[in-house]
Each structure stands twice: as C-alpha cells, then as structure tokens.
C-alpha cells in the first residue's frame, strides 16, 4: 500500500519539490454569501478569506451550520457567492458575478457518499474519464483496476455499492476522484457517522493517498482529533455568519501514524483547538435554540 507508483499521482512523486509545479492553490478573498429562503435573508458567510497553498491538506472545523459547506459548494460550483472572489491557481474561479462551473479539476467527496448505487464499483470509478471521453473503455478499466488494487480494494470491482462496507464505499469514492487527477479534492465531512474503528482505517488510507499524490485537499469536519491528525493547517470557523476565527499550523511531521497521537505537540495542538472550537459550538447551540423558540 505504501509504494508510490505513477498511477495514483500522475503528476508528481512522493517528494513535493520534485514535481515541476504544484497545482491546486486556492485563494478565497472576502467571500460573502447571503441565502434567501422563504423571503428571509440569512448571512451564511461573512467576509471569509483564506489562502490554501498548493498541495496543502487544509482542514476546516466549526459548529454545524457555520457555512463550511457553503464555502465548499461555492468552490465546487454548486452555487454562487454574493460577493468576493475565489481563485484557483490565480485564475478566477467564482466571484459575486460569476458562478464556477463544476468540473473534474475539483472533485467532491460527499457527506453521505454519492457512489451511484445503480453502477458497479468499476463502472463508478471509470465514470469520469468515460463521460469526458478522455480514455477508451478498456484503458479506463485497466487504470481503475490498478488504482483499486493500490487502495486495497481488489476483487470488489463487480460488486454494487450496497454490497460492500461503508468504509470500502468511501475508499472507492476517493479512488473515483483520483481517477480524474483533480487539482483539488473537496471533502465534505466524509467520515461522519462512522464508528471509531472504521474511521481509523479511513484516516490511514487518506493519508496514504495524500502522501503519494500531494493533492490539495480541502477537508471539512466536526471531529477535532481527525482535524489535527490529518491536516497541515486547521482553520477554525466562527458560528454563523461564518468567517475564519483562527488558523492553526499543524507542524507534525509526515508521514503520520498513530504514534503521533501520543506526542506532546499533538496534545498541545488539541488543547488549542478544543478551546477555540468549544466556545463557538456552545454559541451555535444556544443560538439554534433561540431560533427555534
């Protein structure tokens, strides 16, 4: 699993400086989003700015309903923002007047998973290249089998998603994304509602993929332990309207494994994140109750 081959990271190698030009730099400047459901304005994002380096594993944490997913959807091109600009590799992706077009350079891994239940694992993984007409069916099949094998998913390519475990489903979804060699991987709380054991596996698998490909990963989560363990930087968001409250550099060495969880630095970082997030979470909780009353 740890051997780096060209298929899983077609543009780079495991050492970042060797790759000609790291891609996937995200610049978010003063992004603001106002929703208008039922004729009532809701300010979801308020002047939110952040710079994500190319090849960074960026993790966003914050209470529920704070606008994390709004940000992700704007980058993915599922809806627009009211004002501000988002750049990908210094090219304007979306702004107050322009909605981004969804495309294979920014692939989303969804909260509840979005493998097509009516296709087999193989058909799911080859979906991207085939609809884009980038590869022949046989070439796509060959490459998909390789990627699946590297991710430890041999022998399930003809199963339907409903026949494999939820952990496997998530890994297939990542394989489907990597098949398109995206610039940015957008992950919207992908491991929510998984039990502790399954999460452990998922983290290890994702770190492997990241270490080999050094893709930019934009990862949203509620789970603080997960945030520090995975991320290069952790961005703490405030409760609605969302803006970046604090940026924490996670200076833990890579490749990471579970020994890091007992290091002093990890505990320090965890302390720091717990303090800043817990405060916001309480605010959000109380605001939610007031709203319902």
């Amino acid at each position, binding site marked *: 699993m740890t051997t780096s081959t060209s298929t899983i990271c077609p543009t780079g190698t495991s050492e970042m400086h060797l790759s000609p030009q790291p891609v996937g730099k995200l610049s978010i400047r003063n992004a603001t989003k106002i929703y208008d459901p039922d004729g009532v304005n809701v300010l979801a994002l308020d002047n939110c700015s952040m710079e994500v380096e190319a090849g960074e594993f960026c993790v966003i944490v914050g209470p529920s309903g704070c606008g994390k997913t709004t940000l992700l959807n704007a980058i993915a091109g599922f809806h627009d923002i009211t004002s501000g600009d988002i750049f990908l590799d210094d090219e304007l992706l979306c702004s107050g007047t322009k909605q981004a077009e969804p495309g294979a350079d920014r692939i989303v891994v969804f909260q509840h998973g979005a493998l097509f239940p009516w296709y087999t694992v193989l058909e799911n993984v080859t979906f991207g290249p085939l609809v884009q007409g980038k590869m022949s069916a046989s070439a796509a099949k060959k490459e998909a089998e390789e990627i699946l094998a590297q991710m430890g998913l041999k022998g399930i390519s003809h199963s339907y998603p409903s026949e494999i475990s939820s952990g496997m489903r998530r890994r297939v979804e990542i394989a489907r994304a990597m098949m398109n060699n995206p610039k940015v991987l957008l992950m919207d709380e992908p491991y929510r509602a998984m039990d502790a054991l399954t999460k452990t596996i998922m983290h290890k698998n994702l770190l492997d993929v990241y270490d080999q490909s050094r893709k930019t990963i934009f990862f949203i989560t509620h789970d603080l332990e997960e945030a520090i363990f995975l991320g290069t930087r952790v961005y703490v968001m405030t409760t609605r309207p969302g803006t970046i409250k604090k940026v924490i550099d996670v200076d833990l060495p890579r490749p990471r494994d579970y020994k890091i*969880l007992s290091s002093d630095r990890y505990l320090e970082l965890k302390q720091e994140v717990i303090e800043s997030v817990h405060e916001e979470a309480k605010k959000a*909780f109380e605001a939610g109750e007031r709203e*319902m009353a």
Partner: protein
Amino acid sequence: MSAHEHISGNGGPLQGGEMQITAVSKSFGIGPLRQQVIENCSFTLERGKLTVLIGPSGCGKTTLINLLAGYEAPDSGTITVDGAPIKGPGKDRLVVFQETALFPWMTTLENVTYGPIVRGEKSKKEVEEEAMHLLRKVGLEDFRDKFPIQLSGGMQRRCELVRALINRPKIMMMDEPFRGLDAMTRELMQEYYVRLFEENHLTNLFITSELEEAIFLADRLVILTNRPASARTVIEIELPRPREFKLLATREYLHYKQQALEILHEEALKAFSSGCGATVADFLEAYSEVESK
C-alpha cells in the same frame, strides 16, 4: 442549560440500584440458522457508578440491553437487580434508545408525563408540575407543547433523559443515545449527560461504539468480545470528576485510550480469524501496519 442544579425534582433523592449479570447466554434462530449472540456474559453494574459497555459494531450490544431491560429473556443465566431476579420490563430499569424513541404523536410534556400518568400514582396536576420542574432544568420549558419533530436532535435527547428521570428509575440504560448527532452537539450532550450523572449518581449503563465518548464518561469500562459477546475486560477509569473536555488532551486519558484500543484490536483479530466482517478486516489491515512501523 442549568444542569448544575440538582435534578431529582421535588420527590426526594434518587436511589440507584445494583445490577448483577451472571453467565447470561442468548441465541437466535434454531438449527443451521442459529446464531449465538451472547455467551456466558457476566459483569456487575455497581451502585451509583457509570458503567460503559464498548465493543465492535454488531457484536450484540443491543441484544444485551434488550435482555437487561427485560424485553427478551436469556436462554440461560440470571440477571438480578438488588438481588431480585428481573421479570419483564419495569420502571426500575429505563432504556433510552438509539436515535430517539419519543412518541411522535405526543408533545414534549405529554411524553414526559406519560409514565407517571399511565401508572396513576399521582394526580395529573402533580405530575405536570414535576415534569415542568424538570423541563425547566434542562431548558425545555418553552417547548412543552411542541411535538418531537419540532425539536432539534439535542433537545430530543434531553427530553428523553427527562422522560426517563421522572420515573425515578434505579438504573438508567442508554443504548448509544447520541448516535446520529453531529460531533459538536454530541460533545455538548456528553458534557451535559455527565453533569446530570454527577448530580444524581444513579446507576447508569451506557452503551457506545465510540472509544473517546466511552472513556470520557465512564467510571468503569466493560469491553465486550466479538460475537458471541461476553465481558472481556473491565477497566476502572480513575479520571477526576467532574469531567471536563480538557481531559481529552491529557496523558492519563491517552493511556486509557491506548489500553482499550489494544484490547479492541485483539478482539478484532479473533473476529477476523473466525471469518467475520469486512469492517474488521479493514481495521486489522490498518492497525497492524501501524504497529509494525
């Protein structure tokens, strides 16, 4: 959320019970379809302690709680409360179910008062007074006439806690009560629940598959074996009370976590050798590599 006040209402202090589970076995089906779910399981719920049961998903935790609550009878073995064997469901042992089992057709107040009213122990007015007293303590007094569907996930769980508490049970049994809540709300509910417990010192049984939650809450941690389930190890958690979230970033906590993980890993190994479960295989693969590094 003024959980720091005493919650026993105006009916005097609550008295916890002691529950003894001795050599309990349970199987389902007959002939080739027979599945031994619980085998020779023994442990004690000590008076006034919070015991947490943890085990791999699908190991038979829910069956165990059905036996303890009296919804099902064990094939062999005895279950006693304060020395007396249990006969069927009773109000001395109350279960708070996974997700929520509030009656959707009753308002918050009707749900809470349901138990005392059907038993006809007190007048309706008295019961309602007591219910309002409890609801006020958990910050739900403004929601007395709302239906469960109108409450947020966290509120529903609090309403369930009150519905159980008003019956002054000797033993509270929580079957993964916070499952399905998002991580932030879940943490707040954990903190909230642990406060309630620290106020009352009822005998509590808490079932979960989240290790972090288990250690944070428990006085005693019972680790179950994989199918057929039995109590494998009991770890006494001697973290200070009242428990605070900062605890999760301490060495002691980490020590307990690793101790428990090791045992869970062993259990996963056993389960794997008996040919059970894709999730377990996944877990092993991830965890074994970590160890060999």
